[in-house]
């Protein structure tokens, strides 16, 4: 039986349709294709066609356990799927807002194939059911608030007129419990919002009662989370709502005189995610552009007789709008490129302020859980190593090695040369696997179908390959790299996109693409004995990052060839040693640093620092004023892993 079945008796036509649906399963993957490949799953081979939009999907495939924020997003995806919809869960059980899973299976290709077989049977029999319950979840509900089109900071919970310009406030829907919303929620909104939602759905264009629908000034009505009603009066700048002072003065950013305002949302300005201050207003101040060309675009309003309320011509509507790069004051919209966006690293929430299809501002944050290394009790070595490797599904082995080396360093144990070589082989194999996984995601991002399939199949082969298998796979890698060098349009697609300047924040391949050589392996005696030299390029754009990663793949192959052995790192027996230790391992995304202290054989304190945490801060400057395609490609080329980001 499927929870998301459709209402209806399984009659003749529905029987046929149910059978057809059982044969043609389309899936939406949560958290994403890179995680599925990291767990070694080939979903297309298992018989489910992956699609980009929840509307086209009949199965929601949840792979591995995910954080509460990601579960809320998965519930949103599930709510937006068309019925009959099924839920196939691999390797996890508690999915709070999502309904109970229709089919659960263990997290492996075999488990996936079994799950899909059961799903086909469930669809053929249960796609239609006489009585069906709605799927409801707290974050799907809407709460109506009223805001003034001209002054978006004025936000009230009940209709009225704007204290500053007297215009009637207009309703606007805000998700009832946004992730960082305010505590108080009036219940009368609940049913009223339902009424509002149903009614607005039936006749979408006719204004709901006497309220106008949301006026067009979306760009100013940023997502201002309403906050507790403050009492004091405060002063804010019309252009930069985040500038707030308790006394009158001029705005530090653009010099406009601050306007008095009832303290509506004193905390709203604290959160940095929507802070537009660093958005470059430079062009507005010293724009010596002659406005001759621009004025022709404005509608001539001299003859306009005034409608019911004070009619504003386009000139004064767009008077204080930020101007785009070509001098036109346009409306900007906030568009979330949500945690499950095909092509972007899964789990990364990228909210772009779009001016047409150009990025005018961005805010990126990870929705993956911020795993605490040590809950409150000390941990056994084995459980600490397991916890650290589960933290990062995209490169588990690298973090396992990091934990082992840190504990051995703390306990003062030396590893034998053979074990060291085996560990080098294991780490390099993981680097090849991780880079192939990135190539598959990058191919999907560029719409380069062949690269997605080829890199994904090689990645699945490399994941658990032993030394001989790797040597057998060498020609495939060489042909893949040679083919990529010869692909037309690839160079022009990547050259000059996401150019980064030299910056000590950079780590791993992103740093080496700019010419900075902070590779942890170059100081490691084992590597220098194998003749390791770091590769680096200097153009610092997406093409350089692609070439550095391709070179690293062939270099890692050579290193594995030199070491001759691959054994996953095992924590040495540290008995009941005590002391402080640290370790630095070059994970596929950059050098990760771990400091820990041991107390008679148990890990007491641990402090981890990962490369993706640093790269997250790069995104805003990287994609400023880029077109949408280039911006997403630049974010993809950073090879971020939201799972290892430490808030």
């Amino acid at each position, binding site marked *: 039986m499927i929870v998301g079945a459709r209402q209806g008796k399984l009659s003749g036509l529905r029987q046929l349709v149910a059978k057809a649906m059982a044969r043609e399963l389309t899936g939406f993957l949560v958290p994403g294709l890179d995680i599925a490949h990291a767990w070694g799953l080939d979903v297309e081979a298992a018989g489910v066609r992956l699609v980009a939009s929840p509307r086209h999907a009949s199965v929601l495939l949840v792979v591995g356990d995910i954080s509460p924020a990601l579960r809320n997003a998965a519930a949103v995806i599930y709510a937006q799927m068309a019925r009959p919809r099924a839920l196939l869960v691999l390797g996890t059980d508690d999915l709070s807002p999502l309904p109970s899973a229709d089919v659960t299976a263990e997290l492996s290709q075999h488990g996936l194939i079994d799950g899909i077989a059961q799903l086909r049977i469930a669809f053929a029999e249960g796609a239609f059911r006489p009585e069906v319950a709605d799927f409801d979840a707290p974050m799907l509900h809407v709460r109506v608030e009223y805001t003034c089109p001209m002054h978006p900071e004025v936000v009230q919970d009940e209709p009225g007129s704007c204290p500053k310009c007297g215009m009637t406030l207009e309703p606007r829907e805000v998700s009832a419990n946004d992730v960082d919303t305010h505590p108080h929620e009036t219940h009368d909104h609940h049913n009223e919002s339902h009424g509002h939602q149903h009614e607005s759905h039936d006749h979408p*264009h006719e204004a709901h009662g006497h309220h106008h*629908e949301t*006026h*067009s000034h979306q760009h100013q009505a940023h997502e201002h989370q309403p906050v507790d009603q403050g009492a004091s009066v405060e002063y804010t700048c019309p252009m930069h709502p985040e500038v707030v002072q308790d006394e009158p003065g001029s705005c530090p950013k653009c010099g406009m005189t601050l306007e008095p305002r009832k303290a509506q949302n004193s905390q709203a300005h604290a959160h940095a995610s929507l802070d537009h201050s660093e958005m470059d207003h430079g062009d507005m101040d010293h724009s010596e552009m002659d406005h001759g060309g621009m004025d022709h675009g404005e509608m001539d309003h001299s*003859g306009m007789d005034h*409608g019911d309320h004070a009619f504003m011509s*386009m000139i004064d509507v767009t008077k204080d709008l930020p101007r785009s790069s*070509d001098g*036109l004051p346009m409306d900007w919209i906030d568009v979330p490129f949500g945690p499950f966006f095909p092509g972007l690293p899964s789990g990364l929430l990228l909210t772009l302020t779009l001016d047409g299809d150009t990025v005018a501002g961005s805010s990126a944050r990870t929705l993956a859980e911020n795993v605490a290394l040590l809950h409150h009790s000390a941990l056994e070595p084995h459980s600490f190593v397991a916890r650290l490797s589960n933290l990062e599904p995209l490169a588990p082995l690298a973090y396992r090695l990091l934990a082992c080396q840190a504990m051995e360093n703390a306990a003062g144990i030396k590893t034998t040369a053979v074990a060291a070589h085996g560990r080098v082989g294991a780490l390099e194999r993981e680097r090849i696997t991780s880079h192939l996984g990135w190539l598959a995601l990058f191919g999907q991002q560029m719409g380069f179908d062949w690269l997605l399939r080829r890199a994904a199949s090689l990645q699945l082969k490399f994941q658990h390959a032993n030394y001989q298998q790797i040597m057998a796979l060498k020609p495939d890698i060489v042909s893949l790299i040679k083919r990529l060098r010869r692909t037309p349009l690839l160079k022009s697609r990547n050259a000059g996109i996401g150019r980064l300047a030299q910056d000590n924040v950079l780590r791993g391949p992103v740093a080496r693409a700019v010419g900075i050589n902070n590779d942890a392996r170059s100081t490691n005696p084992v590597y220098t004995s194998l003749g390791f030299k770091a590769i680096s390029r200097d153009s610092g754009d997406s093409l350089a990052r692609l070439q550095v990663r391709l070179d690293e793949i062939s270099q890692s192959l050579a290193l594995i060839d030199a070491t001759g052995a691959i054994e996953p790192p095992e924590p040495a027996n540290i008995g009941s040693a005590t002391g402080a230790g640290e370790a630095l391992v070059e994970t596929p995304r950059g050098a990760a640093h771990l400091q820990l202290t041991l107390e008679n054989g148990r890990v007491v304190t641990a402090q981890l620092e990962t490369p993706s945490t640093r790269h997250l801060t790069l995104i805003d400057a990287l994609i400023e004023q880029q077109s949408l395609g280039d911006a997403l490609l630049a974010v993809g080329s950073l090879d971020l892993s939201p799972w290892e980001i430490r808030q």
Partner: protein
Amino acid sequence: MISVQLFFISFFGLAAVWFAVVVFRTHSMMRSALALLFSQTALGAMFIGMQAEFLGVLQIMMMATEMSIMAIFMVMFMMDPGGLGKMDMTHQKRLSVIAGLVAFVAVVVVAVFADWGPLASSVPDAAQQIEDLGLELLGRSMLIFETAGLTILTAMIAATAVAVEPIKRNRD
């Protein structure tokens, strides 16, 4: 035969007029742009109904692309393009009603009283029309053909000068 042709011509004529009315009655810019597009398509269909196939097909094709480009410019520069605010964009109502009536009367007078010459007994078939148009273009109205080229050139230069900010030579 004439009655079927007349029926289709009047049907498409009414469709063109109705779409034209929708252009001004709707609040959404996008709807009014596409209503104008379909009004032109109905006009093209009228030409085809009147056995001017080349003219009709040309009208249907060119108007579609040009009205779409008008749509993007309307959406770029007009306030509230989605028509959510239900603003009343019409203005100078009395003046426009008078102008409309005057124009209608003028058109009817011209249509009824002007001397259109003898009713053509037969219309050359479509392929012949294109050929005649081609020969006309290269023969008698060669001058019109070339001046049309010049007017298009002036249009391009004017559009370039007005709409696009010239590249500043001093930039990098």
